[in-house]
Protein backbone atom coordinates (compact mmCIF):
# COMPACT_ATOMS: atom_id res chain seq x y z
CA UNK A 1 0.00 0.00 0.00
CA UNK A 2 0.93 3.62 -0.30
CA UNK A 3 3.31 5.05 2.22
CA UNK A 4 1.84 8.05 4.02
CA UNK A 5 2.66 11.36 2.36
CA UNK A 6 4.74 13.50 4.66
CA UNK A 7 4.40 17.26 4.84
CA UNK A 8 6.64 19.64 6.74
CA UNK A 9 5.08 22.86 8.06
CA UNK A 10 7.42 25.70 8.96
CA UNK A 11 5.64 28.58 10.68
CA UNK A 12 6.59 30.67 13.68
CA UNK A 13 2.95 31.21 14.59
CA UNK A 14 2.32 28.20 16.80
CA UNK A 15 -1.46 28.43 16.49
CA UNK A 16 -1.48 28.69 12.71
CA UNK A 17 1.05 25.87 12.45
CA UNK A 18 -1.06 23.60 14.65
CA UNK A 19 -4.17 24.56 12.73
CA UNK A 20 -2.64 23.59 9.39
CA UNK A 21 -1.29 20.44 11.01
CA UNK A 22 -4.82 19.49 12.08
CA UNK A 23 -6.23 20.25 8.65
CA UNK A 24 -3.60 18.06 6.98
CA UNK A 25 -3.88 15.26 9.52
CA UNK A 26 -7.63 15.11 9.14
CA UNK A 27 -7.00 14.62 5.43
CA UNK A 28 -4.68 11.69 6.04
CA UNK A 29 -1.26 13.28 5.66
CA UNK A 30 1.69 12.69 7.91
CA UNK A 31 2.79 16.01 9.36
CA UNK A 32 5.88 17.42 10.98
CA UNK A 33 5.75 20.94 12.42
CA UNK A 34 8.70 23.25 12.99
CA UNK A 35 8.06 26.59 14.71
CA UNK A 36 11.08 28.45 13.34
CA UNK A 37 13.25 28.57 10.23
CA UNK A 38 16.33 26.90 11.69
CA UNK A 39 14.32 24.02 13.09
CA UNK A 40 12.53 23.80 9.76
CA UNK A 41 15.80 23.28 7.89
CA UNK A 42 16.88 20.63 10.38
CA UNK A 43 13.53 18.82 10.15
CA UNK A 44 13.65 18.91 6.36
CA UNK A 45 16.78 16.75 6.47
CA UNK A 46 15.63 14.45 9.27
CA UNK A 47 12.08 14.01 8.12
CA UNK A 48 12.67 14.05 4.37
CA UNK A 49 9.18 15.39 3.56
CA UNK A 50 7.31 15.01 0.27
CA UNK A 51 6.24 18.65 0.41
CA UNK A 52 7.13 21.73 2.44
CA UNK A 53 4.75 24.49 3.52
CA UNK A 54 6.65 27.51 4.77
CA UNK A 55 5.71 30.90 6.20
CA UNK A 56 7.67 33.83 4.76
CA UNK A 57 7.72 36.29 7.60
CA UNK A 58 9.76 34.66 10.34
CA UNK A 59 12.62 35.70 12.58
CA UNK A 60 15.61 35.46 12.55
CA UNK A 61 15.61 33.13 9.53
CA UNK A 62 12.81 33.96 7.10
CA UNK A 63 11.08 31.75 4.55
CA UNK A 64 13.29 32.89 1.68
CA UNK A 65 16.41 31.92 3.60
CA UNK A 66 14.93 28.55 4.49
CA UNK A 67 14.16 27.97 0.84
CA UNK A 68 17.65 29.01 -0.27
CA UNK A 69 19.37 26.72 2.20
CA UNK A 70 17.19 23.75 1.27
CA UNK A 71 17.54 24.36 -2.44
CA UNK A 72 21.33 24.17 -2.12
CA UNK A 73 21.03 20.63 -0.92
CA UNK A 74 20.44 18.16 -3.70
CA UNK A 75 18.65 15.94 -1.21
CA UNK A 76 15.49 18.01 -1.23
CA UNK A 77 15.90 20.42 -4.09
CA UNK A 78 13.03 18.81 -5.99
CA UNK A 79 10.60 18.66 -3.10
CA UNK A 80 7.61 20.94 -3.80
CA UNK A 81 7.90 24.09 -1.74
CA UNK A 82 4.84 26.23 -1.05
CA UNK A 83 5.01 29.61 0.62
CA UNK A 84 2.28 30.81 2.94
CA UNK A 85 2.12 34.56 3.11
CA UNK A 86 0.00 37.22 4.76
CA UNK A 87 0.97 39.59 2.01
CA UNK A 88 -0.58 39.62 -1.42
CA UNK A 89 2.00 42.09 -2.64
CA UNK A 90 3.49 41.72 -6.06
CA UNK A 91 6.96 42.22 -4.64
CA UNK A 92 6.72 39.13 -2.49
CA UNK A 93 5.34 36.90 -5.17
CA UNK A 94 7.87 38.06 -7.70
CA UNK A 95 10.71 37.45 -5.33
CA UNK A 96 9.51 34.01 -4.35
CA UNK A 97 8.87 32.81 -7.86
CA UNK A 98 12.21 34.13 -8.95
CA UNK A 99 13.67 31.80 -6.37
CA UNK A 100 11.81 28.91 -7.95
CA UNK A 101 9.13 28.38 -5.33
CA UNK A 102 6.28 26.18 -6.57
CA UNK A 103 3.31 28.04 -5.23
CA UNK A 104 1.90 30.70 -2.99
CA UNK A 105 -0.84 30.61 -0.48
CA UNK A 106 -2.24 33.87 0.73
CA UNK A 107 -3.73 33.80 4.21
CA UNK A 108 -6.52 33.26 5.03
CA UNK A 109 -7.32 30.23 2.93
CA UNK A 110 -10.05 27.70 2.51
CA UNK A 111 -9.09 24.31 3.97
CA UNK A 112 -10.29 22.48 0.89
CA UNK A 113 -8.36 24.82 -1.41
CA UNK A 114 -5.22 24.20 0.59
CA UNK A 115 -5.63 20.45 0.26
CA UNK A 116 -6.41 20.72 -3.45
CA UNK A 117 -3.34 22.81 -4.13
CA UNK A 118 -1.13 20.45 -2.14
CA UNK A 119 -2.50 17.46 -4.06
CA UNK A 120 -1.84 19.23 -7.35
CA UNK A 121 1.79 19.91 -6.42
CA UNK A 122 2.27 16.39 -5.15
CA UNK A 123 0.90 14.73 -8.24
CA UNK A 124 3.15 16.86 -10.44
CA UNK A 125 6.10 15.95 -8.27
CA UNK A 126 5.26 12.26 -8.37
CA UNK A 127 4.84 12.38 -12.13
CA UNK A 128 8.21 14.08 -12.59
CA UNK A 129 9.78 11.52 -10.31
CA UNK A 130 8.26 8.72 -12.37
CA UNK A 131 9.42 10.25 -15.67
CA UNK A 132 12.86 10.74 -14.16
CA UNK A 133 12.95 7.10 -13.18
CA UNK A 134 11.93 5.88 -16.61
CA UNK A 135 14.46 8.12 -18.30
CA UNK A 136 17.07 6.97 -15.93
CA UNK A 137 16.32 3.33 -16.69
CA UNK A 138 16.67 3.96 -20.41
CA UNK A 139 19.86 5.91 -19.97
CA UNK A 140 21.18 3.35 -17.57
CA UNK A 141 20.79 0.51 -20.00
CA UNK A 142 21.90 2.33 -23.14
CA UNK A 143 24.84 4.35 -21.89
CA UNK A 144 28.25 3.45 -23.38
CA UNK A 145 29.77 4.33 -20.00
CA UNK A 146 29.58 2.51 -16.72
CA UNK A 147 26.86 3.60 -14.32
CA UNK A 148 26.10 2.15 -10.93
CA UNK A 149 23.95 2.92 -7.93
CA UNK A 150 25.36 2.44 -4.45
CA UNK A 151 24.66 3.53 -0.90
CA UNK A 152 28.23 4.63 -0.16
CA UNK A 153 29.24 1.03 0.21
CA UNK A 154 27.19 -1.72 -1.43
CA UNK A 155 26.42 -1.62 -5.13
CA UNK A 156 22.70 -2.11 -5.79
CA UNK A 157 22.59 -1.89 -9.49
CA UNK A 158 25.06 -1.65 -12.36
CA UNK A 159 24.54 -1.23 -16.08
CA UNK A 160 25.84 -3.53 -18.83
CA UNK A 161 28.62 -1.08 -19.73
CA UNK A 162 30.08 -1.23 -16.23
CA UNK A 163 30.00 -5.00 -16.29
CA UNK A 164 32.00 -4.83 -19.52
CA UNK A 165 34.54 -2.36 -18.12
CA UNK A 166 35.02 -4.36 -14.93
CA UNK A 167 35.15 -7.64 -16.83
CA UNK A 168 33.00 -9.24 -14.19
CA UNK A 169 30.21 -11.73 -14.13
CA UNK A 170 27.06 -9.63 -14.35
CA UNK A 171 25.20 -11.77 -11.85
CA UNK A 172 27.84 -11.23 -9.19
CA UNK A 173 28.31 -7.50 -9.55
CA UNK A 174 25.65 -6.46 -7.09
CA UNK A 175 27.27 -8.44 -4.34
CA UNK A 176 30.33 -6.19 -4.55
CA UNK A 177 30.98 -3.04 -2.60
CA UNK A 178 32.59 0.06 -4.08
CA UNK A 179 35.70 -0.73 -2.03
CA UNK A 180 36.12 -3.99 -3.89
CA UNK A 181 35.95 -2.65 -7.40
CA UNK A 182 38.59 0.06 -6.85
CA UNK A 183 42.24 -0.43 -5.98
CA UNK A 184 43.06 0.31 -2.35
CA UNK A 185 44.93 3.59 -2.88
CA UNK A 186 42.18 4.95 -5.14
CA UNK A 187 39.46 4.05 -2.68
CA UNK A 188 41.30 5.79 0.14
CA UNK A 189 41.63 8.88 -2.05
CA UNK A 190 37.82 9.21 -2.31
CA UNK A 191 36.65 7.57 0.93
CA UNK A 192 36.15 10.86 2.81
CA UNK A 193 34.19 12.38 -0.05
CA UNK A 194 31.88 9.38 -0.31
CA UNK A 195 31.26 9.68 3.40
CA UNK A 196 30.43 13.36 2.99
CA UNK A 197 27.94 12.52 0.26
CA UNK A 198 26.14 10.01 2.47
CA UNK A 199 25.87 12.68 5.16
CA UNK A 200 24.51 15.24 2.72
CA UNK A 201 27.57 17.49 3.04
CA UNK A 202 28.63 17.07 -0.57
CA UNK A 203 26.55 16.69 -3.73
CA UNK A 204 29.06 15.31 -6.16
CA UNK A 205 32.75 14.87 -6.93
CA UNK A 206 34.99 13.46 -9.67
CA UNK A 207 38.36 11.75 -9.55
CA UNK A 208 40.72 9.73 -11.70
CA UNK A 209 40.95 6.30 -10.10
CA UNK A 210 42.32 2.82 -10.79
CA UNK A 211 40.10 -0.21 -10.76
CA UNK A 212 41.06 -3.17 -8.63
CA UNK A 213 43.49 -5.22 -10.69
CA UNK A 214 42.21 -8.21 -12.59
CA UNK A 215 44.52 -10.40 -14.59
CA UNK A 216 47.44 -8.28 -13.34
CA UNK A 217 46.55 -5.06 -15.17
CA UNK A 218 45.31 -1.81 -13.57
CA UNK A 219 42.68 0.03 -15.54
CA UNK A 220 42.61 3.84 -15.21
CA UNK A 221 39.12 5.33 -15.24
CA UNK A 222 37.45 8.65 -14.58
CA UNK A 223 34.92 8.32 -11.76
CA UNK A 224 32.14 10.80 -11.09
CA UNK A 225 29.84 10.38 -8.09
CA UNK A 226 26.62 12.26 -7.48
CA UNK A 227 23.92 11.95 -4.82
CA UNK A 228 20.92 10.36 -6.49
CA UNK A 229 18.22 10.11 -3.89
CA UNK A 230 18.01 10.52 -0.16
CA UNK A 231 15.95 8.20 1.98
CA UNK A 232 15.29 8.65 5.66
CA UNK A 233 18.08 6.32 6.72
CA UNK A 234 20.40 6.08 3.75
CA UNK A 235 21.58 7.94 0.67
CA UNK A 236 21.62 6.45 -2.78
CA UNK A 237 24.46 7.68 -4.98
CA UNK A 238 25.13 7.31 -8.66
CA UNK A 239 28.60 6.56 -9.95
CA UNK A 240 29.73 7.14 -13.50
CA UNK A 241 32.76 5.33 -14.85
CA UNK A 242 34.44 6.53 -18.04
CA UNK A 243 37.23 4.52 -19.55
CA UNK A 244 40.36 6.02 -21.16
CA UNK A 245 39.58 9.59 -20.26
CA UNK A 246 41.30 12.02 -22.59
CA UNK A 247 41.48 15.12 -20.44
CA UNK A 248 39.99 17.61 -22.89
CA UNK A 249 36.49 16.70 -23.93
CA UNK A 250 35.31 13.74 -21.97
CA UNK A 251 32.20 15.54 -20.93
CA UNK A 252 31.53 16.91 -24.41
CA UNK A 253 31.79 13.48 -25.93
CA UNK A 254 29.68 12.03 -23.21
CA UNK A 255 26.92 14.56 -23.52
CA UNK A 256 26.74 14.36 -27.29
CA UNK A 257 26.94 10.59 -27.17
CA UNK A 258 24.09 10.39 -24.72
CA UNK A 259 22.01 12.87 -26.62
CA UNK A 260 22.50 10.81 -29.76
CA UNK A 261 21.34 7.70 -28.02
CA UNK A 262 18.39 9.47 -26.47
CA UNK A 263 17.38 10.88 -29.81
CA UNK A 264 17.60 7.49 -31.43
CA UNK A 265 15.47 6.02 -28.69
CA UNK A 266 13.04 8.91 -28.89
CA UNK A 267 13.46 9.91 -25.28
CA UNK A 268 12.72 13.51 -24.39
CA UNK A 269 15.15 15.06 -21.98
CA UNK A 270 13.17 16.95 -19.38
CA UNK A 271 14.33 19.31 -16.71
CA UNK A 272 14.95 16.74 -14.04
CA UNK A 273 17.08 14.47 -16.20
CA UNK A 274 18.97 17.35 -17.77
CA UNK A 275 19.83 18.54 -14.33
CA UNK A 276 21.03 15.13 -13.25
CA UNK A 277 23.32 14.95 -16.25
CA UNK A 278 24.80 18.37 -15.66
CA UNK A 279 25.23 17.62 -12.01
CA UNK A 280 27.48 14.78 -12.90
CA UNK A 281 29.34 16.44 -15.71
CA UNK A 282 29.11 20.00 -14.45
CA UNK A 283 30.45 21.29 -17.72
CA UNK A 284 27.77 21.32 -20.32
CA UNK A 285 24.16 22.20 -20.00
CA UNK A 286 21.87 19.91 -21.84
CA UNK A 287 19.64 22.16 -23.87
CA UNK A 288 16.20 22.05 -22.38
CA UNK A 289 13.39 22.96 -24.67
CA UNK A 290 11.95 26.32 -23.72
CA UNK A 291 8.49 27.45 -24.58
CA UNK A 292 8.56 30.16 -27.21
CA UNK A 293 7.33 33.49 -25.96
CA UNK A 294 3.63 33.98 -26.46
CA UNK A 295 3.75 37.72 -25.95
CA UNK A 296 4.42 40.36 -28.56
CA UNK A 297 7.42 42.69 -28.13
CA UNK A 298 5.18 45.50 -26.95
CA UNK A 299 3.41 43.24 -24.49
CA UNK A 300 6.77 42.17 -23.14
CA UNK A 301 7.74 45.80 -22.59
CA UNK A 302 4.48 46.46 -20.75
CA UNK A 303 4.98 43.30 -18.72
CA UNK A 304 8.50 44.27 -17.64
CA UNK A 305 7.47 47.77 -16.66
CA UNK A 306 4.44 46.40 -14.78
CA UNK A 307 6.75 44.13 -12.87
CA UNK A 308 8.66 47.17 -11.68
CA UNK A 309 5.40 48.17 -10.04
CA UNK A 310 5.04 51.27 -12.22
CA UNK A 311 1.61 52.86 -12.51
CA UNK A 312 -0.14 52.68 -15.88
CA UNK A 313 0.47 56.35 -16.55
CA UNK A 314 4.22 56.02 -16.18
CA UNK A 315 4.28 52.92 -18.36
CA UNK A 316 2.30 54.75 -21.02
CA UNK A 317 4.70 57.71 -20.89
CA UNK A 318 7.76 55.50 -21.06
CA UNK A 319 6.51 53.69 -24.11
CA UNK A 320 4.94 56.81 -25.64
CA UNK A 321 1.54 55.15 -25.90
CA UNK A 322 -1.80 55.97 -24.30
CA UNK A 323 -3.05 54.66 -20.97
CA UNK A 324 -5.77 52.79 -22.80
CA UNK A 325 -3.27 51.05 -25.04
CA UNK A 326 -1.34 49.92 -21.98
CA UNK A 327 -4.58 48.51 -20.60
CA UNK A 328 -5.25 46.77 -23.89
CA UNK A 329 -1.84 45.08 -23.85
CA UNK A 330 -2.45 43.98 -20.29
CA UNK A 331 -5.85 42.58 -21.12
CA UNK A 332 -4.44 40.75 -24.09
CA UNK A 333 -1.75 39.16 -21.90
CA UNK A 334 -4.39 38.16 -19.36
CA UNK A 335 -6.39 36.61 -22.15
CA UNK A 336 -3.41 34.66 -23.45
CA UNK A 337 -2.49 33.35 -20.02
CA UNK A 338 -6.02 32.94 -18.77
CA UNK A 339 -5.27 35.19 -15.82
CA UNK A 340 -7.55 37.37 -13.75
CA UNK A 341 -5.02 40.12 -13.08
CA UNK A 342 -1.50 41.27 -13.85
CA UNK A 343 -0.02 39.38 -10.93
CA UNK A 344 -1.23 36.15 -12.40
CA UNK A 345 0.26 37.11 -15.75
CA UNK A 346 3.60 37.78 -14.11
CA UNK A 347 3.39 34.56 -12.15
CA UNK A 348 2.60 32.71 -15.38
CA UNK A 349 5.45 34.37 -17.25
CA UNK A 350 7.93 33.61 -14.49
CA UNK A 351 6.83 30.00 -14.23
CA UNK A 352 7.20 29.46 -17.93
CA UNK A 353 10.51 31.25 -18.27
CA UNK A 354 8.97 33.82 -20.57
CA UNK A 355 10.82 36.65 -18.89
CA UNK A 356 14.08 37.22 -17.08
CA UNK A 357 14.29 39.18 -13.92
Amino acid sequence: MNVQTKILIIDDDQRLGRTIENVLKSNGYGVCFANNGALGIQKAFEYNPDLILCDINMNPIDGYQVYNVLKESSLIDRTPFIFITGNSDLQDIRFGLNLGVDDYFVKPFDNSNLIRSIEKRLSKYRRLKEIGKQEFKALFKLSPYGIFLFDGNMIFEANPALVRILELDATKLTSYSIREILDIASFQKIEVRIHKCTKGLLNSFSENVSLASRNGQKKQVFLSVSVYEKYSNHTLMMGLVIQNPSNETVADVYVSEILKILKKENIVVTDAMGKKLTDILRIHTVKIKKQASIFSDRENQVLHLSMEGLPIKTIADKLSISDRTVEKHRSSMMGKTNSKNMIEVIVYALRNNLIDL
Partner: protein
Amino acid sequence: MESKNILIGGGISRTELKMVRFTEFNEVEYSRIISAISHDISNPVAILKSNIQLLSNNFSKNENELNREILSMCDESAEELVRFLDNIRLINLSIKSIITPKIALFKIDDILNDRFLDIEKLSLNPKRIFIRSNPEFTEISSDLEFIRQILFNLLTNALKFSRAEVTLSISSTEASLEIEVQDFGVGIPENEVDEIFNPFFRGSNVKKTPGMGLGLSIVKALTKSLGGKIYLLSLINQGTILRIVLPNERAN
Protein backbone atom coordinates in the same frame (compact mmCIF):
# COMPACT_ATOMS: atom_id res chain seq x y z
CA MET B 1 -37.77 72.24 -3.86
CA GLU B 2 -36.59 72.02 -7.40
CA SER B 3 -33.47 70.06 -6.59
CA LYS B 4 -35.58 67.67 -4.55
CA ASN B 5 -37.64 67.00 -7.60
CA ILE B 6 -34.58 66.00 -9.51
CA LEU B 7 -33.94 63.32 -6.95
CA ILE B 8 -37.39 62.06 -6.38
CA GLY B 9 -38.98 62.30 -9.77
CA GLY B 10 -36.88 59.62 -11.45
CA GLY B 11 -37.63 60.60 -15.03
CA ILE B 12 -36.63 64.27 -14.77
CA SER B 13 -33.43 65.42 -16.51
CA ARG B 14 -30.32 64.72 -14.54
CA THR B 15 -28.27 67.60 -15.83
CA GLU B 16 -27.21 68.42 -12.30
CA LEU B 17 -25.17 65.25 -12.01
CA LYS B 18 -21.54 66.28 -11.68
CA MET B 19 -18.53 64.28 -12.67
CA VAL B 20 -16.53 63.29 -9.61
CA ARG B 21 -12.95 64.51 -9.44
CA PHE B 22 -10.79 62.16 -7.49
CA THR B 23 -8.83 64.08 -4.87
CA GLU B 24 -5.25 63.17 -4.16
CA PHE B 25 -4.51 61.35 -0.99
CA ASN B 26 -1.27 60.14 0.50
CA GLU B 27 -1.17 56.86 -1.39
CA VAL B 28 2.25 55.70 -0.23
CA GLU B 29 1.30 56.14 3.40
CA TYR B 30 -2.07 54.40 2.87
CA SER B 31 -0.38 51.54 1.13
CA ARG B 32 2.12 51.15 3.96
CA ILE B 33 -0.61 51.09 6.59
CA ILE B 34 -2.80 48.70 4.62
CA SER B 35 0.12 46.32 4.13
CA ALA B 36 0.84 46.38 7.85
CA ILE B 37 -2.81 45.78 8.82
CA SER B 38 -3.36 43.07 6.25
CA HIS B 39 -0.19 41.34 7.32
CA ASP B 40 -1.02 41.43 11.01
CA ILE B 41 -4.61 40.32 10.84
CA SER B 42 -4.10 37.65 8.18
CA ASN B 43 -2.81 35.09 10.70
CA PRO B 44 -5.61 35.37 13.26
CA VAL B 45 -8.20 35.42 10.48
CA ALA B 46 -6.62 32.37 8.83
CA ILE B 47 -6.61 30.53 12.16
CA LEU B 48 -10.26 31.40 12.84
CA LYS B 49 -11.45 30.39 9.40
CA SER B 50 -9.56 27.10 9.24
CA ASN B 51 -10.58 26.03 12.73
CA ILE B 52 -14.23 26.88 12.18
CA GLN B 53 -14.14 24.64 9.13
CA LEU B 54 -12.41 21.88 11.09
CA LEU B 55 -14.97 22.17 13.85
CA SER B 56 -17.90 21.99 11.47
CA ASN B 57 -16.36 18.86 9.90
CA ASN B 58 -16.26 17.35 13.38
CA PHE B 59 -19.94 17.98 13.98
CA SER B 60 -21.98 14.84 13.99
CA LYS B 61 -25.16 14.49 11.98
CA ASN B 62 -27.33 15.05 15.01
CA GLU B 63 -25.35 17.90 16.48
CA ASN B 64 -27.65 20.10 18.53
CA GLU B 65 -29.15 23.19 16.95
CA LEU B 66 -27.61 25.66 19.39
CA ASN B 67 -24.08 24.48 18.60
CA ARG B 68 -24.79 24.75 14.91
CA GLU B 69 -26.10 28.26 15.33
CA ILE B 70 -23.08 29.32 17.41
CA LEU B 71 -20.67 27.97 14.85
CA SER B 72 -22.52 29.50 11.96
CA MET B 73 -22.36 32.92 13.62
CA CYS B 74 -18.61 32.48 14.12
CA ASP B 75 -18.34 31.48 10.49
CA GLU B 76 -20.25 34.48 9.20
CA SER B 77 -18.16 36.84 11.29
CA ALA B 78 -14.94 35.24 10.10
CA GLU B 79 -16.17 35.59 6.54
CA GLU B 80 -16.79 39.26 7.19
CA LEU B 81 -13.19 39.65 8.30
CA VAL B 82 -12.03 37.81 5.18
CA ARG B 83 -14.04 40.21 3.03
CA PHE B 84 -12.49 43.15 4.85
CA LEU B 85 -9.03 41.75 4.17
CA ASP B 86 -9.87 41.16 0.51
CA ASN B 87 -11.17 44.71 0.24
CA ILE B 88 -8.15 46.45 1.73
CA ARG B 89 -5.87 44.29 -0.39
CA LEU B 90 -7.82 45.26 -3.48
CA ILE B 91 -7.42 48.93 -2.56
CA ASN B 92 -3.72 48.41 -2.00
CA LEU B 93 -3.37 46.79 -5.40
CA SER B 94 -5.27 49.64 -6.98
CA ILE B 95 -2.97 52.19 -5.30
CA LYS B 96 -0.07 50.34 -6.85
CA SER B 97 -1.94 50.21 -10.19
CA ILE B 98 -1.73 46.47 -10.44
CA ILE B 99 -5.35 45.56 -10.92
CA THR B 100 -6.26 45.06 -14.52
CA PRO B 101 -9.68 44.07 -15.79
CA LYS B 102 -10.22 40.96 -17.86
CA ILE B 103 -12.20 42.22 -20.79
CA ALA B 104 -14.72 39.89 -22.42
CA LEU B 105 -18.01 40.13 -24.26
CA PHE B 106 -21.07 39.35 -22.15
CA LYS B 107 -24.82 39.89 -22.07
CA ILE B 108 -25.88 42.85 -19.99
CA ASP B 109 -28.65 40.69 -18.50
CA ASP B 110 -25.93 38.49 -17.00
CA ILE B 111 -24.91 41.23 -14.60
CA LEU B 112 -28.01 40.64 -12.49
CA ASN B 113 -28.08 36.86 -12.49
CA ASP B 114 -28.94 34.72 -9.50
CA ARG B 115 -25.40 34.70 -8.19
CA PHE B 116 -25.46 38.43 -7.95
CA LEU B 117 -28.42 38.26 -5.62
CA ASP B 118 -26.01 37.15 -2.96
CA ILE B 119 -26.89 40.57 -1.70
CA GLU B 120 -29.56 38.82 0.33
CA LYS B 121 -26.81 37.70 2.64
CA LEU B 122 -26.45 41.25 3.83
CA SER B 123 -29.77 41.24 5.70
CA LEU B 124 -30.50 44.66 4.26
CA ASN B 125 -33.76 43.61 2.65
CA PRO B 126 -32.97 43.68 -1.05
CA LYS B 127 -36.70 43.72 -1.76
CA ARG B 128 -36.37 47.49 -1.52
CA ILE B 129 -34.40 47.50 -4.75
CA PHE B 130 -36.31 48.42 -7.89
CA ILE B 131 -34.58 47.46 -11.06
CA ARG B 132 -35.04 49.26 -14.36
CA SER B 133 -32.91 47.49 -16.89
CA ASN B 134 -33.57 48.58 -20.42
CA PRO B 135 -30.40 48.37 -22.41
CA GLU B 136 -30.44 49.50 -26.01
CA PHE B 137 -27.55 47.20 -26.79
CA THR B 138 -27.79 43.80 -25.16
CA GLU B 139 -24.08 42.95 -25.14
CA ILE B 140 -21.01 44.74 -23.90
CA SER B 141 -17.29 44.19 -23.73
CA SER B 142 -15.96 44.87 -20.24
CA ASP B 143 -15.15 42.99 -17.03
CA LEU B 144 -18.29 41.34 -15.68
CA GLU B 145 -16.83 40.55 -12.25
CA PHE B 146 -15.62 44.11 -11.76
CA ILE B 147 -19.03 45.48 -12.73
CA ARG B 148 -20.76 43.14 -10.30
CA GLN B 149 -18.45 44.23 -7.55
CA ILE B 150 -19.10 47.90 -8.32
CA LEU B 151 -22.85 47.28 -8.26
CA PHE B 152 -22.68 45.26 -5.09
CA ASN B 153 -20.89 48.07 -3.29
CA LEU B 154 -23.22 50.75 -4.63
CA LEU B 155 -26.34 48.82 -3.64
CA THR B 156 -25.15 47.89 -0.16
CA ASN B 157 -24.29 51.53 0.45
CA ALA B 158 -27.64 52.73 -0.84
CA LEU B 159 -29.55 50.20 1.30
CA LYS B 160 -27.46 51.02 4.31
CA PHE B 161 -27.94 54.76 4.24
CA SER B 162 -31.60 54.96 3.30
CA ARG B 163 -34.79 53.37 4.56
CA ALA B 164 -36.84 53.95 1.45
CA GLU B 165 -36.65 52.24 -1.89
CA VAL B 166 -33.48 52.10 -3.97
CA THR B 167 -33.59 52.28 -7.75
CA LEU B 168 -31.11 50.57 -9.97
CA SER B 169 -31.09 51.51 -13.65
CA ILE B 170 -28.94 49.89 -16.25
CA SER B 171 -28.78 51.29 -19.76
CA SER B 172 -26.43 51.00 -22.67
CA THR B 173 -25.46 52.57 -25.93
CA GLU B 174 -23.04 51.30 -28.52
CA ALA B 175 -20.24 53.18 -26.79
CA SER B 176 -20.98 52.72 -23.11
CA LEU B 177 -22.75 51.07 -20.23
CA GLU B 178 -24.43 53.22 -17.61
CA ILE B 179 -25.28 52.05 -14.15
CA GLU B 180 -27.23 54.32 -11.89
CA VAL B 181 -28.19 53.79 -8.28
CA GLN B 182 -30.55 56.20 -6.62
CA ASP B 183 -31.53 56.28 -2.98
CA PHE B 184 -33.58 58.60 -0.80
CA GLY B 185 -31.26 58.43 2.15
CA VAL B 186 -28.98 60.61 4.24
CA GLY B 187 -27.00 62.10 1.34
CA ILE B 188 -23.39 63.24 1.20
CA PRO B 189 -22.34 66.68 2.48
CA GLU B 190 -21.38 68.78 -0.54
CA ASN B 191 -17.85 69.55 0.61
CA GLU B 192 -17.10 65.85 1.11
CA VAL B 193 -18.20 64.65 -2.29
CA ASP B 194 -14.69 64.27 -3.70
CA GLU B 195 -13.14 62.83 -0.59
CA ILE B 196 -15.86 60.23 -0.08
CA PHE B 197 -14.12 58.02 -2.64
CA ASN B 198 -10.90 57.82 -0.63
CA PRO B 199 -10.34 54.66 1.41
CA PHE B 200 -11.44 54.82 5.05
CA PHE B 201 -13.11 58.20 4.57
CA ARG B 202 -16.60 58.36 6.06
CA GLY B 203 -19.15 61.13 5.62
CA SER B 204 -19.51 63.35 8.70
CA ASN B 205 -23.27 62.62 8.80
CA VAL B 206 -22.97 58.81 8.94
CA LYS B 207 -20.53 58.39 11.81
CA LYS B 208 -23.12 56.46 13.81
CA THR B 209 -23.71 53.89 11.07
CA PRO B 210 -21.12 51.11 11.27
CA GLY B 211 -18.74 50.79 8.34
CA MET B 212 -15.13 51.05 7.30
CA GLY B 213 -15.38 53.55 4.46
CA LEU B 214 -14.17 51.11 1.87
CA GLY B 215 -17.14 50.60 -0.44
CA LEU B 216 -16.84 53.73 -2.55
CA SER B 217 -13.07 53.53 -2.73
CA ILE B 218 -13.46 50.08 -4.26
CA VAL B 219 -16.06 51.46 -6.68
CA LYS B 220 -13.56 54.14 -7.63
CA ALA B 221 -10.63 51.72 -8.01
CA LEU B 222 -12.60 49.35 -10.24
CA THR B 223 -14.22 52.12 -12.27
CA LYS B 224 -10.83 53.70 -12.87
CA SER B 225 -9.36 50.42 -14.00
CA LEU B 226 -12.23 49.98 -16.46
CA GLY B 227 -11.59 53.45 -17.85
CA GLY B 228 -14.95 54.68 -16.57
CA LYS B 229 -16.25 57.86 -15.00
CA ILE B 230 -18.38 58.52 -11.94
CA TYR B 231 -21.16 61.14 -11.77
CA LEU B 232 -22.89 62.12 -8.59
CA LEU B 233 -25.69 64.26 -7.27
CA SER B 234 -26.47 64.26 -3.59
CA LEU B 235 -28.56 66.31 -1.23
CA ILE B 236 -28.50 66.00 2.53
CA ASN B 237 -31.44 63.98 3.86
CA GLN B 238 -32.94 63.76 0.38
CA GLY B 239 -30.82 61.21 -1.33
CA THR B 240 -28.07 60.42 -3.74
CA ILE B 241 -27.80 59.50 -7.41
CA LEU B 242 -24.58 57.82 -8.37
CA ARG B 243 -23.95 57.02 -12.00
CA ILE B 244 -21.08 54.97 -13.38
CA VAL B 245 -20.35 55.25 -17.09
CA LEU B 246 -18.14 52.51 -18.44
CA PRO B 247 -16.80 52.38 -21.99
CA ASN B 248 -17.78 49.49 -24.21
CA GLU B 249 -14.37 48.09 -25.02
CA ARG B 250 -15.47 46.63 -28.33
CA ALA B 251 -16.57 50.01 -29.61
CA ASN B 252 -13.08 51.46 -29.12
